[in-house]
């Protein structure tokens, strides 16, 4: 493409194929304790 450079093809939609194991951390456990961000957690089932 000449005008658009795609840097992510839709990882969110593709993750629907994952099992949704819910083994990942809870967001407050990592550092924040006040300002919940879920997107910066790591997947335990890569």
């Amino acid at each position, binding site marked *: *493409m*000449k*005008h*658009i*450079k*795609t*840097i*992510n*093809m*839709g*990882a*969110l*939609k593709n*993750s*629907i194929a*994952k099992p*949704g194991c*819910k*083994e*990942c*951390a*809870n*967001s*407050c*456990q*990592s*550092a*924040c*304790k*006040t*300002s*919940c*961000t*879920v*997107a*910066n*957690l*790591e*997947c*335990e*089932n*890569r």
Partner: protein
Amino acid sequence: MKLHKFKQMGMNIVIDVNSGAIHVVDDIVYDVLDYYKNLSLDEIINKLQTKYNKEQLEEAYDEIRQLEEEGMLYTEDPYKNIILNDNGPSYIKAMCLNIAHDCNLKCKYCFASEGDYKGERKLMSAEVGKKAIDFVIENAGPRRNVEIDLFGGEPLMNFKVVKEIVEYARQREKETGKNIRFTITTNATLLTDEIMDFIDENMGNVVLSIDGRKEVNDNIRIRYDGTGTFDDILPKIKKMVEKRKDGKQYYVRGTFTRENLDFYNDVMMLADEGFKEISIEPVVLEDKHPLSLREEDLETIYEQYDKLAEEIVRREKEGKGFKFYHFNIDVNGGPCVYKRISGCGAGYEYVAVTPDGDIYPCHQFVGNEDFKLGNVFTGIENNELIKTFKNGHIYNKPKCMECWARFYCSGGCQANNYSFNKDIHIPYELGCKMMKKRVECAIAIKAKLMEE
């Protein structure tokens, strides 16, 4: 909202909200997107012909259409039914253990009322701690990973019990096949060589509190005699971090307030001290508190995040990069959609336990009797409340459904929502605004680094 676009670091970035696709586009596409859904190609050409020629506009239009057809622009939300149909049980598998409702500091912004959570100053007994470990193991059901955060107050005021709890957990881990990960959050004042070795060996993560520059830290993080802690804690934090070899996690974590809106300098101070994992987070206080962040501070805060994002890119390219917690978004990975639509987990996957064994949806709700879920000795008594938290996801938060950042923050902090709006379903707006800025910065950093 299906699309979000913004400009940062000289790039035009477009996020397709529902697929998670991210594009860097030129000015033509950026402008065409303003009209793409509402006007025909001819009308768009008419509208933008003073800026671009017909051929350019046709090309841009075609590229947008192609991505739309491929499911990377204007995608519909395909996830809603997943969560609405999820009637299965939930498992409590993460716990904040309030080892001490007491603290040797009286930081001016403390949400826990200088450690006592507005109650009696108290240390957790080993008996309660062990019972809490049993509780979480029993309630984790099929989940293998169990997380325990040793929290306070200041947990190291009760180090003997910390050791007993960890030892007990290791034994229970072997018996049950669970994988228990400990984190400890400490103000660093009580760190000794013995304690540091223990932490290094047993903690998956250690969160070390310092607010940045000496004058900033010592304005807020003070002892009972009013003296600051900086000179005492910085060498201890450095020593603790030096022990964290082989990729063992730590976070040097601070809070910024209205008195250091130039918190970029605090992040940099910590980075220049050699720390590689840094988190400086906005204070959450009611408007009338002198340290609270307010609407009129946002412009300055945004500038600070912009500056920080640019500096992080610069340092990364020089091989001197560091991680800023809130910018750690892995655009090609991160948690799956099941996690993102279910939220932070407070109240149904994650709970906090007091020194008396009382269970609350998270550490921020501790002390609010309306939110007591039960006790580790008697079990969960308020299953309705657990259900409320489980259903407190983005699809039940109308404002989140209008927001492009919903799959990044997943509905925000329930406790903040409650304390500002008395309803976990109504987002804490100032927090949302800062969150959105951080997500933009995080994505821009990744885009910039991929560009070259």
